[in-house]
């Protein structure tokens, strides 16, 4: 077992894990952060996306030990401090940018990474940002609209 210390959603956390444990399992099982979802466990579907040091990564393809000393943002980190939905979450609700909700945390993480770069993304930029995240419910249209809406709201608020 290895002791892993990292920052998750701005909070210092530590827990021990087997060297073979994925970051995904570590977040869910050892830290109790359930918003990140397991989809394919081979890096294709993007349901397990988290932000590591500012960039989106697949938590299923990383070992927990590789995240030692790094800063992680999970979908829980997209809530406001009081636990209410942040602007990306609220925009997904407004645009109905989801159905079953399973790929949604990964989509919102991808959206977050994009909107950190620009709040006025083009459709091509949105497609690029979520191009590695599969959704089987929506056909993507309302997800793209949700991200556009979130960008507009962020821009208006800034």
């Amino acid at each position, binding site marked *: 077992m290895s002791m892993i210390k990292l920052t998750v959603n701005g909070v210092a956390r530590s827990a021990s894990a087997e060297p073979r444990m994925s970051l995904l399992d570590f977040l869910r099982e050892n830290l109790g952060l359930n918003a990140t*979802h397991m989809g*394919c466990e081979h890096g294709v*579907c993007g349901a397990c996306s988290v932000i590591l040091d500012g960039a989106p990564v697949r938590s299923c393809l990383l070992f927990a030990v590789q995240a030692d000393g790094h800063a992680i943002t999970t979908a829980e980190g*997209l809530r406001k401090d009081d636990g209410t939905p942040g602007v990306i979450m609220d925009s997904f609700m407004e645009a109905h940018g989801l*159905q079953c909700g*399973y790929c949604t945390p990964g989509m919102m993480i991808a959206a977050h990474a994009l909107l950190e770069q620009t709040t006025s993304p083009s459709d091509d930029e949105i497609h690029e940002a979520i191009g590695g*995240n599969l959704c089987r419910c929506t056909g*993507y249209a309302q997800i793209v609209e949700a991200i556009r809406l979130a960008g507009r709201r962020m821009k208006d608020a800034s």
Partner: protein
Amino acid sequence: MTAPLDSHAPNTRYVARKRRVTEDKRLAAGRGNFVQDIVLPGMLHVAVLASPHPRAKILSIDTSAALALPGVAAVLTGAQLSAATNPLYGGLPTPEVKWYPLAVDLTRYAGEWVAVVAATSRGLAEDAIELIAVEYESLPCIIDPEAALLPDAPLVHPGHKSNVLYRQTFTWGPVADDFAKAEDTLTFRARWNRSSTVPIETFGALARWDIGREIIEIWASIQMPNYAEQIAASLRIPLNSVKVHHDVDVGGSYGVKRGIKHTIIVAHLSRMLGGVPVRLIEDRLDNMSGGDAHGPDRIFDTTVAFDKNGSIRSLKIRALDDAGAYPGRGPFQLGKPIAALVGPYTINSVEYEAISVTTNKTGQVPVRGFGQSPTNFMIETAVDKVARHLGLDRLEIRRRNFIAPNAFPYEIPTGTKYDSGNYPAVLDKGIALADWQHLTLRRDAIRKEGRLAGIGVATCLEPGGGNNMFEYLMNPAAEITTFMEGCGIRVDSSGRITGIMGTTTSGQGHETLVATIMGEELEREPDDIRVLHADSLAGLPTRSPVASRMAIMLGGAAAGAARKIKDKLIKIAAHNLGVGESELDYDGGTFFDRANPARKLTWEQLCIIAHRQYHKLPAGLEPGLQAEYVWQVPGGGQLPDAQDKVQLYPCFSFQAHFALIEIDPGTGKVSILDYALAHDCGTVINPDIVRGMIIGGVAHGIGAALYEQFTYAPDGQFMSATFADYLMPSVFEVPFVRDVEHCTPSPLTSHGQKGSGEGGYLGAPACIASAVNDALSTRNLCLDSLPMHMMKIEALLNGDSQT
């Protein structure tokens, strides 16, 4: 964006209005309650051992090393499990086709589960799996469904003495006469290869045997009718010993989340281990190869009889479907399409030979539309072929054969009455939205530059509501005519409303549906209504969210329950205001004396009377405000007549799809340049939900048309076990889909609603195929096999026979 409702739309407060989806409040906040999120103290984790052989005798299994590994609680083999349980439910009269969760003596497909381990962690369980030693004797297998029919084919289920699970020919109407009178005929083969819905969440189940109560508790990502019944039957326990928790969020299903074998494994282990909770979460390999989650795998041989004016008289259809090793409900996917076997057309007669064969592939489960999408692809291919043969416009031939708007209810040759529709109007709206002329100009401009381009058009009917009388047609022992859905309502003493449904939800927004309809009926704010998913022991009868039925059936049950509450409130108000029930007006929860509106009773006052003031209740009225309503599917309830004519499904939605595609002549790659559709599902309950389901269905249909296939090598090995091999559309493959709504209300439902969960998937494969063939027609080529992989198209363009 969706266009506004047309003038047919009902005058409503909440129904058909843009409103946020109730479920999104938790799901978009990362607060779902998926089966993987449910952790019970002491829970054990299951890993599975899969057979590497497509067909093999199991000579021996040595589990001793696995059992000796610290942390391993149990190892279970097929021999042990089959001794303690009954076979899983089939549905056809094929007693020698036995299905157990783990292989017994013989493995029947590569990936079939042979043994499982329960251990303190999934990792440890996987370690133990590697310590199980199985001795196999590999046997010849059968993969090709046509070869499976040959007399010398290896038998998948030797006791059944044949690979044919089901074979029947129906003749509805004067087929021979119509063929004799027809001026021309045309025969073709259409192939729908094996694909599925492949939700991003795999299947998972968690079970705990509550010894004190003698109840097996189940939490599972399930979407399935009669799940509790099948668990009880297999485990040999009473039905009231099975409690299925329905408040588990399901991460997508679209039909396939039928993990009955997984459930029996964990339930049996929990009982075996004295009540320790046991869970099995499929990993993606388990899911793709051995999860029994594949869809239809079908060959159509069709002859169409028509006149020179394009009028289609009759169809002869032979549908051969490969159900895989364990049929489950797979073969019945040949039955559902009977509900709309002639599409939206005035085809006078139809012959239908349906054949289900078993092969050494993983078992087939229900997929979105329950077999209707392959059949619609075949019907629309037939129409396009007749048009091309006669040199007729593809829109014109559809118009000439459409059922007229004034002909409803319209009975098709199979005995089913379509409830309502206006197909020409929907087609016209679609043509206008797609801008057919402009599409044609764009296509021709691309062609002028020497490239391949095509326009696709397809229509589809979406039967909704789920009266499954095809089961009786296929197996008369299944004398079932009841297809019901229940809903409960409680209004508390503070006036707040709780709706109680009795099944899971997997993205369709059922809580929104119930809240919207109860709010509409009672004129109360839907956002204030809570909707619970009662477990299978506490809830009312349900057939689960299959068959595009919930807007119709759960919506109808919610309306019925709410109307009972309103009836009771009227009685209380009339009694306390001292007027007759017909002398009251109702607005937003308050009853007024029509003659003197100053005299009134508010919602809050009425709820207090109902709950607290028995002395103010009319004599004999039950105290409190609670009601249940169980609704039988409308328009059915009868067995087929002597000619096998029967009402299948009550409501029929309609869509018209249009696409412009380009094919790269070098690679065969298809790019969708434009996509538009018009849809009519009667009254829309929530526009965002309907739009999402339709566009999501199109995306799914694009996958089935161009990319997705579960491929088996000729030696029976499974070749598509990862997302790198089984290709699903990303945002780059799904174009922006423009949609326009039309509303022909159903006369059979509470608010005129029909189903909408399947239509996108029913129309898109046919539409893409139509577009690809329009493009290929410029080279006198044709492709009637889905998916139209770029390799297939490239081979066709470059004269390679390997198609």
